[in-house]
């Protein structure tokens, strides 16, 4: 068994959280509340030392008074707590939305629409390797059928009905793959914890 007290704290807290699998109990509650408290403390300290202090207050202390503008914009968020001046909160929100939309829309369109459409188009080059060609064709059919499934302006009958049903199959395969990956992810986290308990704590495995 490990002589390191930090390993013991980690192991005991892990077991406290796992105890919830049996049923809710005070040990689990303690672990949960401790986690929330520690996480909050960590984030507050990190944001203060790495963001607010160097990027704002140090600059103001150095006489860069232009930083009063972001300070005021930040303070306006708190106006929400005073009903009389709560409208002030719209200014920083408007600023953030304007900046965010301006910066994101072209980047999003280019990276996630244009390039993805480009990747879906089947060209003669797709068939240089026949297997890749077949996959490219499946992707093309999958995208078209899925898009037709989400086309609600016309009743899904006839060809539209057949293609939209094929679209559902592609969507279901996508859901299945996502679920499979999710199971793998959650099991990985459990394996990690058990490796920690059996290894660093109990010393039963390397």
């Amino acid at each position, binding site marked *: 068994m490990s002589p390191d007290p930090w390993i013991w704290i980690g192991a005991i807290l892990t077991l406290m959280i796992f105890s919830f699998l049996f049923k809710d109990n005070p040990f689990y509650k303690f672990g949960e509340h401790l986690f929330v408290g520690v996480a909050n403390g960590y984030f507050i300290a*990190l944001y203060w030392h790495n*963001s607010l202090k160097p990027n704002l207050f140090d600059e103001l202390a150095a006489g860069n008074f232009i930083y009063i503008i972001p300070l005021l914009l930040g303070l306006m968020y708190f106006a929400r707590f005073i009903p009389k001046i709560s409208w002030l909160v719209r200014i920083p929100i408007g600023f953030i939305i304007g900046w965010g939309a301006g910066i994101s829309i072209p980047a999003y369109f280019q990276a996630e629409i244009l390039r993805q459409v480009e990747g879906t188009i089947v060209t003669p080059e797709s068939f240089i390797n026949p297997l890749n060609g077949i996959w490219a064709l499946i992707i093309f059919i999958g995208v078209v059928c899925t898009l037709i499934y989400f086309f609600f302006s016309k009743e899904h009958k006839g060809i539209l009905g057949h293609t939209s049903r094929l679209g559902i199959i592609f969507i279901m395969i996508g859901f299945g793959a996502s679920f499979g990956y999710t199971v793998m*992810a959650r099991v*990985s986290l459990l394996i990690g914890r*058990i490796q920690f308990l059996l290894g660093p704590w109990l010393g039963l495995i390397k």
Partner: protein
Amino acid sequence: MKWYEVISKIDRRIIYVLLTLFIILPFFVKITIPQNIMPQTQKLFDFVDSIPPNDKVIMIAFEYSPQTMPECRPMAIALLKHSFMRNIPIVGVSFDPQGPGLAVEAFATVVDELNSIALSREDSIIYGEDYVYLGWKSGRLAALLEMGESIKSVFPRDHFRNSVDSFPLMQRVRNYKDVAIAIVLAAADYPIDWIRYAQTRYGVKVGAGLTAVMAPKYYPFLQTGQVSGMMSGMKGAAEYEKLVLEHGYATELGTAETGMNSQSMIHILIIVFILLGNIGYFFSRRKK
């Protein structure tokens, strides 16, 4: 109670106990379940393996959190070993507040291991010359765009509050032009921002090491070539560990490879439970 009712109403605590047993068993009983290397992991490995030594840097973004360490930490360890053994300099960054502590730990683990077997100063991994960890920065969208012009203006100091001008490595790393690939080890949707802002605008190559939950979302980007290679969950990490070992960059496998036997056992168990649940459901419906 009929047999089909029994199998569709198994107490969840029995399932937990079985899950735990199936995870523990492969650690004590030698069970070898072969793992194939997926093309996306091979692609990432090949990309890193083709970067000329002592030329451009690999930028690693440490964006994982303590709860996703079993998936992402082995990726970081294998990737660091691979890069250091090939003399490819590394610049680490984080935009997730939980990243810095884990990045420092991963660097320390690999650097200590490699320096303990180094025969000369040339073989050693030296901070500031072979790698730098720039730390965490808030406002990642602006930072990702600004780093295309100047990394120094976003990170004037490293994680340990040293001026980046004091590092020989950072004298030659000015912006994305000096980055061979940015590999994002993430437990949240960070790689998409690298694709949207760093790649679309500055053309930087992006690789990814993702938790398995996130992996399906990134396959389309892999297909279009926007992601140059990818490790998906613990399996991806185990594959990269295996490749690093096979090419002689490591002497032993890491924690992901050892965990994969448990992973495969659990998958078999879950498939059995899904089948039992479905059989129970269909029989009880037929009886009604």
